C-alpha cells in the first residue's frame, strides 16, 4: 500500500516535469561520464607508470662509427677497454642496483621486435644504426640520478646519458593535462547538475503544493511527504548514471584499449578497474542527487 502510493507519486512527479527530468538525466549522464573518463585516465597513467617503473631507468649510449656528437667524432667508437672501465665505475657505485650491457646486435633485435607491427619503419634502420649501451637500474632513481649520470658523462667512449623518465615525463604531462581538462569539465558539469536537481525538485514541489499542503494538514509525516521527491531526484540520478555506464564502457573498449595498440607496451585496464570507476560514479551521482533533493526540500516543504 505505502510502496504503491509512493511509487505512484514518484511517477506523477517525474512525468509532470518531463522536460526538466530529461535535462537533469542528460546532464548527470554527461558529467558522470566525464568524471569516469577522468578516473580511467588516472588509472591508465598509473598503470603505464608502474609498468615503466620496473624497466630501464638510465641508458648510457656509447660511441659508434655513426655517432654524430663532437666527443665521439674526436675519439672514435668505444673500445672494449673503455667499456670495461665504464662498467667497473658503474658497478662500484653503491647507488647502482644493476648494470646490463646491450650490444648493438641485441639493441637491433629488440628494436625489430618492438616495432614488429611497423615493418616499413624497421626496414629504414639497419643493424649498427642503434648504438650499444649500458642499461642501469638505480636503487633510488629520484635521488641518485644526478650522481650516477655525472660520474659517466664525458668519459671517453660515452656518447650520451639519457634518463628514461625524462622521455616518459612528456608523455605523462600530456596525459595528465588531458585528465585535468576532463576532470575540470566534469566538476563544472556536476555543479550544473546540482543546480538542475535543486530546480527540478523545487518545480516538482511547487507543482504538487496542493497535495503536500493537504498531506501536511491531515498529519502525514515529513518523511512520507518528502520521500517521493527524494526518490524522484535519486531515480533521475540513477538513470543518468546508467547512461554514463554505457558511455564509459564504450570509452574504455573503443578508445582507451584501441589506443594501446599504437604503443609498444600493452597496459590494458582490467574490467575490475572499470567496475571500480563505475561504482564510484554511481556513489557520486546518487549522493549528489539525493543530498541536493533533501536540502532543497528542507527549504520548500517546511512543516
Amino acid at each position, binding site marked *: 500500500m505505502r510502496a504503491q502510493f509512493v511509487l505512484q507519486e514518484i511517477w506523477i512527479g517525474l512525468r509532470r516535469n518531463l522536460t526538466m527530468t530529461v535535462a537533469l538525466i542528460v546532464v548527470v549522464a554527461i558529467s558522470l561520464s566525464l568524471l569516469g573518463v577522468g578516473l580511467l585516465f588516472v588509472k591508465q597513467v598509473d598503470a603505464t607508470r608502474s609498468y615503466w617503473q620496473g624497466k630501464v631507468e638510465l641508458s648510457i649510449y656509447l660511441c659508434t662509427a655513426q655517432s654524430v656528437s663532437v666527443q665521439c667524432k674526436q675519439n672514435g667508437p668505444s673500445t672494449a677497454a673503455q667499456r670495461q672501465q665504464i662498467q667497473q665505475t658503474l658497478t662500484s657505485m653503491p647507488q647502482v642496483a644493476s648494470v646490463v650491457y646491450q650490444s648493438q646486435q641485441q639493441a637491433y633485435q629488440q628494436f625489430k621486435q618492438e616495432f614488429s607491427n611497423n615493418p616499413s619503419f624497421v626496414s629504414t634502420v639497419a643493424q649498427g644504426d642503434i648504438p650499444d649501451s649500458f642499461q642501469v637500474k638505480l636503487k633510488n632513481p629520484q635521488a641518485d640520478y644526478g650522481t650516477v649520470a655525472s660520474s659517466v658523462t664525458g668519459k671517453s667512449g660515452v656518447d650520451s646519458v639519457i634518463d628514461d623518465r625524462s622521455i616518459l615525463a612528456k608523455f605523462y604531462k600530456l596525459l595528465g593535462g588531458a585528465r585535468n581538462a576532463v576532470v575540470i569539465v566534469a566538476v563544472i558539469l556536476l555543479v550544473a547538475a546540482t543546480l538542475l536537481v535543486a530546480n527540478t525538485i523545487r518545480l516538482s514541489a511547487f507543482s504538487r503544493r*496542493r497535495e503536500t499542503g493537504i498531506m501536511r494538514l*491531515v498529519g502525514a509525516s515529513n518523511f512520507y511527504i518528502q520521500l517521493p521527491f527524494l526518490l524522484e531526484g535519486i531515480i533521475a540520478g540513477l538513470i543518468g548514471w546508467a547512461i554514463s555506464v554505457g558511455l564509459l564502457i564504450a570509452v574504455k573498449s573503443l578508445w582507451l584499449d584501441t589506443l594501446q595498440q599504437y604503443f609498444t607496451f600493452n597496459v590494458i585496464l582490467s574490467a575490475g578497474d572499470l567496475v571500480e570507476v563505475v561504482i564510484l560514479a554511481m556513489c557520486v551521482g546518487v549522493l549528489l542527487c539525493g543530498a541536493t533533493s533533501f536540502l532543497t526540500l528542507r527549504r520548500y516543504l517546511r*512543516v
Partner: protein
Amino acid sequence: MINFDNVTKIYPSQSRPALENVSISVEKGEFVFLVGPSGSGKSTFLRLVLKEERPTDGRIRVSGRDLAHLSNWRVPMLRRRIGCVFQDFRLLPNKNVYQNVAFALEVIGKPRRFIRKVVPEVIDLVGLEGKHERMPDELSGGEQQRVAMARAFVNRPMILLADEPTGNIDPATSIGIMKVLDRINRTGTTVVMATHDAAIVDSMRKRVIELEYGKVVRDQSRGVYGQAY
C-alpha cells in the same frame, strides 16, 4: 480539549498583535462559533491550534498536551487528531470523491482494507452516497464542501476546525453544511467554526466567542452573532 492561557501572537512583520492575552477554554464535545471581522484573529487562533504558528507568549494545550513541549516530528500526530475544513475546499482536482477522502488515510499509511471500509461510511455521513466517482469539478460548491468535511472527519479526529466553511456557499446550501457539522459534533467531536455568517450563528444557538483586534470581547453560551452586524 483546547486551552488558551493568556496567548499573544505577534507576527514579525506587524506591530499590532494578531491575538492579545487570549484565554479561551473549549471543552470536549462543544460546538463553538468564532466570530469577528476580518483581521480579528480567528484564523490565527485556528493556526495556533494546529501548531502551524507558535505563540509569542502564553500557553496552548490541545487535549491536555502543551504544544510548546510538542517536538516537531510529533506535530503530524497532533494533526491526525484534528480535522480541517476551509472556505476554498482544497480538494485535489484530479482525484474523484472517493480518492479525495481516501487520500487523507493513504498518506498516513492506513491499510487498504481499513480505507475501503471507512471511506464509504463517511461519504454516506456527509450525504454524498452514490457520488463516489464524481470529480470535484462535477460537483456544486456545497457538495465539494461535503467532500472536504468527509476528508476532515474520515480519521475520526477529536477536534474539527472549520474556517468559514460556508463562505463560498449560498445560504440555502449552507444549512445542509451546518447539518453535517452538527452531525459530526453529535459523534462527540469538538467543533470550532470561524464564520462571518450571522444567520447561521443565530439559528444554531451555540456558544459564541467574539474576537476584535485580537481580543476576546464576548464569550457567550447559546449566543447570537451580535447586534453590531
